[in-house]
């Protein structure tokens, strides 16, 4: 993965999000050891202190836990924690941005909800086609 160094998002947050994505798509499994700050430093070409800060975000949210002398491990309920957290933080923020942009473009409530419905239908249909293949 490439880091977006111009993003408003700090690099350590991007590291934390990448690790979360790895947990969500089961590349990192529960109770498995997660990358060390030094492995992450090497993988992303960043200072180990930056990588450590990314790991600490996960530790603070109980997504990973420390085993003394062994490193950090993925918690048993990591997946649920991440999903809940994303619903509450990320999705809410996206909705708020969406509403703001709709206001600016003079799109009213009915139109906006209509657009969302259409999009949902569209992606369901695509999913179904995928399954048939």
């Amino acid at each position, binding site marked *: 993965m490439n880091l977006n*160094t111009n993003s*408003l998002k700090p690099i350590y947050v991007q590291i934390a999000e990448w690790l979360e994505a790895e947990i969500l798509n089961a590349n990192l499994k529960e109770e498995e050891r997660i990358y060390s700050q030094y492995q992450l430093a090497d993988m992303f*070409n960043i200072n180990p202190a930056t990588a450590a800060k990314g790991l600490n975000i996960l530790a603070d949210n109980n997504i990973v836990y420390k085993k003394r002398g062994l490193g950090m491990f993925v918690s048993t309920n990591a997946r649920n924690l991440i999903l809940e957290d994303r619903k509450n933080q990320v999705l809410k923020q996206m909705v708020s941005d969406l509403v703001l942009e709709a206001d600016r473009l003079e799109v009213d409530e009915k139109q906006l909800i209509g657009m969302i419905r259409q999009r949902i239908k569209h992606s369901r249909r695509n999913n179904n086609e995928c399954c048939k293949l």
Partner: protein
Amino acid sequence: MSVVSCENLSKAYNNFSAVKNLSFDLGENKITGLIGRNGAGKTTLLKLIAGFLRPTSGAVKVFSQNPFDNITVSSNIIFIDDNMNFPVSLTLSEILDSAGMFYKNWDDKFARKLISYFSLDLSQSHFGLSKGMKSTFNVIIGIATRCPLTLFDEPTTGMDSAVRKDFYRALLKDYVEHPRTFILSSHLLNEIDDILEDVLLIKDGTKALHLPVLDLKEYAIGLRGSQDVLKDFSSKDIIHEESFGSDSSYIVVKNQFSQTKLEQLKASGVSMTSVASDDLCNYLTAKTKGGIDDVFNRE
């Protein structure tokens, strides 16, 4: 433990003060970027730390000792810059051999692997190398000595961008395997900020900022929007400003807003961007807030 510690350090050449009342401590096993404009005093500071120069006043301590004329300090630090002189009669291979005699942590195998990766000819003399190849050879010496304190003064001068990237990666990988203290002076902060832990920014010989690079990245925020909305910011908070279009501005301010204030700004059509640490350092060390545009401003 701090590896380098300066207290009210000053150095003057005749009437010109290159370094003025600098005080700071550098912790062990960190990579610190020494950043500043041309003539800010970076090289003088590094030479004071390396013990090449004697302070005019104040003190510099390296491993708790005065570095000037000090064999213990000298054998534990290496200073790499593009004026390094090696005896003309020695081949690169012979220079590597003698580096091994001086420095106890010298990794000869590693040095020769790097030399061959960068396609340098060991039988050539240092004198005959191109500018970029000289710099490449010098940084190889700097990394392979594995000194507890390594000083790089503009190490990438003349290197092409592929070699620069390889050098930064080699430095980082070797640092992860053998943690030690580095000071890296550079103009190209955007190239090195990912591998740094701390940044020491100096302006006219004095300390402008000394903080973790992660804090530097969040130190300021760029706001782009109509002048009406942005005029509320008082000029003492503004680090940099540009106007463009008929009524729009871009300002850089210290990042000290509450979430509510950010929401308000967003709602009034202000877009927010992060400020690259490189740009921020340029703004913080600029003489005027409008930069070069002020020269062309006829009002």
